[in-house]
């Protein structure tokens, strides 16, 4: 079936069956490959995108449910000042290793800072607990969020 998606400020008409995870429409049809496939069952966070500014796992978000939403992916999250601050902090601290989980980490970090501009360590650990990093870059993720919070405060 044909659907209209609002993604990264643009309108796209896509052809997908109901029940298709948003992840695969983004990756395979729109060919935006920054959003990653890690588990498909909402337990790693690699596929995190924003729906109306809130992080969701796109592997468990179905295409028919997002027609009216504003979708933002990693490719556009840096257009916003929180996204830009997180990306800047990530580079300053060299958070990444293999990098495969990091799109999702950045999307979740932006979600956290959007609702809590100065999160405590406990709040960071709690909020980010659904984003797995097999390279175990966690301590830099924590520091990166704190640094982004500082950048935003300045």
């Amino acid at each position: 079936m044909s659907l209209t998606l609002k993604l990264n400020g643009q309108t796209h008409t896509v052809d997908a069956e109901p029940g298709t995870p948003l992840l695969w429409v983004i990756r395979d049809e729109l060919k935006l490959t920054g959003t990653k496939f890690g588990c498909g069952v909402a337990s790693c966070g690699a596929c995190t995108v924003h729906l109306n500014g809130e992080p969701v796992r796109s592997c468990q978000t179905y295409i028919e449910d997002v027609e009216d939403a504003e979708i933002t992916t990693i490719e556009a999250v840096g257009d916003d000042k929180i996204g830009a601050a997180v990306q800047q902090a990530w580079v300053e601290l060299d958070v990444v290793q293999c990098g495969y989980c990091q799109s999702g980490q950045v999307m979740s970090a932006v979600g956290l800072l959007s609702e809590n501009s100065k999160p405590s360590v406990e709040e960071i650990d709690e909020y980010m607990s659904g984003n797995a990093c097999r390279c175990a870059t966690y301590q830099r993720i924590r520091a990166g969020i704190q640094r982004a919070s500082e950048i935003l405060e300045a």
Partner: protein
Amino acid sequence: MTINTSRRGFLKGAAAAGAVLLVGARPDGALAAASSETTQFNPFVKIDADGTVTAIVKHFEKGQGPATGLPTLIAEEIGLTMDQIEYEFAPSDPNVYNNLLFGPFQGTGGSTAMANSWLQYRQAGAAAREMLINAAAQSWSVDASGITIEAGIVKAGDKSAPIAEFVAAASQLEAPAEPRLKDPSEFRLIGNESVRRKDSAIKGNGQAMYAMDVHVPNQMVAMIKRPESKGGIAKGFDDSASKEVKGYINAAILPNQAGVAVYAEDTWAAIQARDALEVEWDMSGGETRDSDQIKAEIMAALESEPTYNVNKADVAAVSAAIDGADKVVEKTFYFPLLAHAPMEPLNCTIEQTAEGDIVLHDGAQMPTGPHMAYQQIFQLPPEKIHIKTMLAGGSFGRRATPDADYQVEAALAFVVTDRSRPVKLVWTREDDIRSGYYRPAFGHKVRVGLDADGNIVGWQHQIAGQSVIKGTAFEAVLVHDGVDHSSVEGVADSPYAIPGMALGLTDTPKATTVLWWRSVGHTHTAYTMETMMDLVAEAAGRDPVEFRLAHLSDSANPDQQRKAAVLKLAVEKAGWGNAPAGRSQGIAVHKSFGSYAAEVVEISGDAENGIKIEKVTCAVDCGIAVNPDVVKAQMEGGIGYGIGHVMRDQITLTSGAVDQSNFPDYEPLRIGDIAAIDVHIVPSAEAPTGVGEPGTPPSAPALANAIHAMTGTLVASHPMAENGINFV
């Protein structure tokens, strides 16, 4: 030696018009230079006419940093800033890009990238510098000795010009046979903590391209339906339900009958169509054992005479010494199967060009593996096979299969088609957990005797498990007198001076497909050695640090001295012995891959209500730390990888089928599991050694020793969460 030229197209821009200076090494190791692509060698450094300098990175980037480290070596020697050097991955060509430590095999593993490239890349950079300087000397009519290059600018007295000016002239010169390498006192980039990774930005903004992101025109996505347990054979299939899936194309039994390939227009269609496919399996040759049986076999082997007397010890004498000892400490350990689970599920894309060449897009860790396998499968000469190395979303050993498993699977899924459409093979996380290669299960049994003064009089150590190396192409190099060194490394070559050591090994029968897993044998040997050191020290009534140092006291033995030094540094930085109230500490130190790491784990809580890991302090000696911040990151990651698995993870089998399937039951380390990691690097003038793996071995035993200190129980079977230890 003949090397075709078509493959060189992968060096983007190398064939572009204008002068280009290329410097590298010939297959015999001699430095070589040329003005454009040649058939004589492949370059390590390329300088375009406009002065753009590119490091050709022969080791693949899975997060461990060669895309930063190798450019650092070249930038240092030429005299550039890190912003003035780019990188690209080398094409697959083992004759020129071989890993010196592996023989004629291009690969990355065993934490060798920096160790192997340290001199090679510096020499190439230094040769380029000398050639640019000699060209400037001619052009300016000044003596070469008065010319320097700094931040990409060539200078002599009041003359200065960017290196671009001399590329054309330099490319006409011979490469110096022995260029002068910078003295460590002149280093500005090597060892500089402020040097940043070159791949940070693209990995934080979604632009980084992994193999999973490859989309070649007209591609099909293939997924493989595999039997429940390994060894099953596909006899036939019914795809009537798959046909209901929009985007389903067709299915075909793989030529080796190991599974059925399902082809679809996109990934989601492939996932659904594979789910819907019914396959008739012949399971008569399939694995049927439970992991309990595999464990029982290992335990039985530990109770029997070992097959190999690894260190040719006088076993009867050692045994008698222990029998007659004042005190005996005895412990049996079990380590389960583990999956690697790199974040990017395995995948690769294969296509055939109009000329009949085969192109593989792959996060290839050992490109020589698929390169050789494809010559057989496609009956093509090596120059007709091209491997494009993409970024890899982690590996931990999984991408380095000696039999090139997933690349071969992709080739098989491709050859059963008419080859008109490229095939992208995609594994799901379930495929990764259930159909993979595993860290083999291992058991250790150790008996240590102490005299009345608390001195070791005998250490009898038995190891049993499935060999990783036997039956692979590496057997000739890594198996000696029947002993797979990777099964005993970390015990057999321990720097500790242990009197009366007898080490025995028994290979247990093949249980499943096994593979090296971050730090290989050290995953179980370090745990055994370092928890035993604590238990033995306790029995001797001695402090665990002092007891270790007493066995590392030979001042003429650099191995012992370096191991002792990291131990002391970790003790100092961790505030060993001064843990805040309610906390316990554990320590472990281990040498692996030429590097030494000591770690102190500090925990709070208790076993019943849950233990919390508050802090891990690490001291590492990896020779010269080329990029100290990358070294720290690798230690942080190695510690997390080691601790995460012993806390909660194992792979178990029921009737040969893997019980776990995805992250919910193979739970990764999460952000809240370790509150802080603090890494310290021992200053060193030695050549660089590994950093990708050495952080892992001491992490789990240090945790175990902390738990032992807190609870009085040493956990000798993993995962800890299923052996009486709860974590919060």
